[in-house]
């Protein structure tokens, strides 16, 4: 089985190639070749297709792609190649279940299948969205920890320390990462859910030194948390990322490689980006030593994952991975619209439905393209989790029908979405509930969902 020393050897001894040649000629060329060879076609009329042969063809194309292009190390400018046998072994030895968390909040993430009746793993929160202050960070994480469906939390990212904007790979980032860990535990302690794991460890630590600087147990991180390491698109890695991998392996942590292939980017359209998305799963297990995977495909223009192309991409990815492997895959979705808008709730409903019915777990979510500070609340992940639980077990055909009732209502606004309100405009941190205006939006949305045959759990706040 390929391990970190093998990855390093390959990175040092692999075929030399310029980065431009790798991504524009080798990778992009091979993706186009596989799409053609396997005759993979996107159908806008069926955002959630029920076509096992399509899913299996995408998997085969992705497998071939990994064998053809491997990964690329930007420090050594060499291709990290894998044999067919190495890829098969990596898939065979990857875990099909993992424990996360402590005490009462310790839970088992298991592999899911298409149409699986078991609820998805709900990794809830901000998906690394920017927050302006320690106060906002605590407000948000307390809100996430109070969601009954929360299995794990994805925190926001701090942007300031000591009144100064964080600078990458600087003491400010190291201090920010340490503060990220401390504040996360503090927020969970405040609402009595001490054992919940953080699984985007650590959103504030983009650099390797910032992550390493926060790993000491005194900052509160645990072996039972999830350690997220972001891949460079497409299929690229550098020593800083491999440093993170090595540090996390050293403490026995479970690495989740996150990767966000852009539809319209290096892999081309929806078909190529789907093949790339599935291929990244395999590359992640090998290169990033990942035991769980965190895809977050986005549309290049909308920077969200709720348009027809992305729903198709998410669904086919989920089906391809869950039909052909036992990998633990967690889809992160982004909306274009912001809090306190029906569009935001409809967008996340569509994306979560595509993921959950196709065999994936969910990380929810990046709100309003995750661009603006404090433009997210605990409501959107709460609703996403309720949807995730409600649609578990739904057939692909029914899921397709459901999203076809939602998408026409917002797709024309994706390019210029309503950004809604900011955290404190529509969330009361003292009462720990949404504003009256947002409550009305939620009630109306839930009435609509009931009308569509998907009643969602009632919130305690009525």
């Amino acid at each position, binding site marked *: 089985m390929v391990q970190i020393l093998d990855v390093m050897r390959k990175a040092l001894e692999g075929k030399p190639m310029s980065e431009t040649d790798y991504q524009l000629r080798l990778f992009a060329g091979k993706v186009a070749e596989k799409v053609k060879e396997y005759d993979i076609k996107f159908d806008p009329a069926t955002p959630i297709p029920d076509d096992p042969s399509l899913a299996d063809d995408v998997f085969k194309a992705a497998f071939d792609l990994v064998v053809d292009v491997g990964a690329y190390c930007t420090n050594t400018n060499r291709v990290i190649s894998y044999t067919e046998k190495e890829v098969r072994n990596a898939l065979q030895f990857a875990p099909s279940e993992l424990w996360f968390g402590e005490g009462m909040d310790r839970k088992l993430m298991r592999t899911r299948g298409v149409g699986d009746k078991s609820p998805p793993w709900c990794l809830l929160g901000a998906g690394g969205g920017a927050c302006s202050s320690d106060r906002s960070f605590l407000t948000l994480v307390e809100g996430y920890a109070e969601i009954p469906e929360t299995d794990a939390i994805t925190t926001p990212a701090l942007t300031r320390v000591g009144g100064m904007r964080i600078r990458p790979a600087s003491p400010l980032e190291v201090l920010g990462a340490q503060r990220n860990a401390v504040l996360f535990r503090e927020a969970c302690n405040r609402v009595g859910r001490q054992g919940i794991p953080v699984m985007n460890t650590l959103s504030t630590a983009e*650099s390797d030194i910032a992550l390493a600087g926060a790993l000491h147990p005194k900052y509160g991180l645990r072996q039972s948390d999830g350690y997220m390491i972001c891949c460079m698109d497409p299929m690229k890695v550098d020593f800083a990322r491999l440093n993170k991998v090595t540090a996390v392996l050293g403490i026995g942590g479970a690495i989740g490689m996150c990767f966000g292939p852009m539809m319209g980017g290096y892999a081309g*359209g929806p078909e190529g980006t789907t093949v790339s998305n599935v291929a990244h799963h395999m590359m992640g297990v090998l290169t990033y030593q990942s035991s769980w995977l965190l895809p977050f495909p986005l549309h290049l223009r909308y920077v969200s994952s709720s348009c027809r192309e992305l729903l198709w991409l998410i669904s086919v990815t989920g089906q391809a991975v869950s039909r052909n492997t036992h990998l633990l895959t967690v889809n992160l979705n982004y909306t274009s619209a912001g809090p306190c808008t029906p569009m935001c709730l409809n967008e996340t409903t569509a994306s979560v439905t595509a993921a959950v019915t196709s065999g994936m777990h969910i990380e929810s979510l990046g709100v309003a393209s995750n661009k603006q500070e404090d433009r997210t609340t605990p409501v959107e992940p709460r609703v996403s989790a309720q949807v995730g639980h409600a649609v578990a077990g739904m057939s692909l055909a029914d899921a397709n029908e459901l999203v076809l009732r939602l998408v026409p209502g917002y797709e024309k606004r994706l390019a210029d979405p309503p950004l809604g309100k900011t955290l404190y405009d529509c969330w009361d941190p003292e009462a720990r509930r949404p504003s009256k205006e947002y409550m009305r939006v939620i009630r109306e949305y839930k009435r609509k969902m009931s009308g569509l045959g998907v009643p969602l759990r009632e919130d305690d706040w009525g």
Partner: protein
Amino acid sequence: MSADKLLKQLQDSILKYDSAAAVSAAKAAINAKVDPLQAIEKGLVPAIEQVGEKFERMEVYLPELMLAGDAMKSALDLLLPLVPKGQKTSKATVVIGTVQGDVHEIGKNIVSSLLMAGGFDVVDLGVNVKTSVFVDEAKSKGAKVIGASALMSSTIGSQKDIVDYLRASGERRKRAFLVGGGPTTQDWAKEIGADGWGKDAVSAVRLATKFAKGR
């Protein structure tokens, strides 16, 4: 071969994203004594503009856009030195890169390619570019516009460092500074004193055009 046919060859090389064909078309045009400025303006530019428009409509994707840009660069390397001094070949020079500590490149690459398609001379510094390098390169290349991309909330602070460095080195009034990338906003651009924020690649090109002659 007629000048029209040679211009068509140049166009085709860009539309086929073929650097080798662009080089041989440029050589053929030079050997046939085609006016190099005409070769650029009537051969290369309309073709790269066409690719840019197709990309905007998502009829082609990033690889095609960047390969067309590469082909254009290959031909320009041969043609530009032959354009007599004083004859204008580009709107302006733009220095562009992803800020220090950030290795994300897709957004920057799209803007870079569309700027080239829009008639700018683009100096692409790549990713993880030191603050001082943006300013030094702008000075040495006579660029009126500097564009800095950042994708992470932890890296956009480096955009502020570039504005501050421009100010501290007495260069601020001479050059426009534009920002873009995932977590950036109009408010952020205003907060740090940038001249503009590119919401997307098209608006970035619009801003560069606005500041082509300086601030």
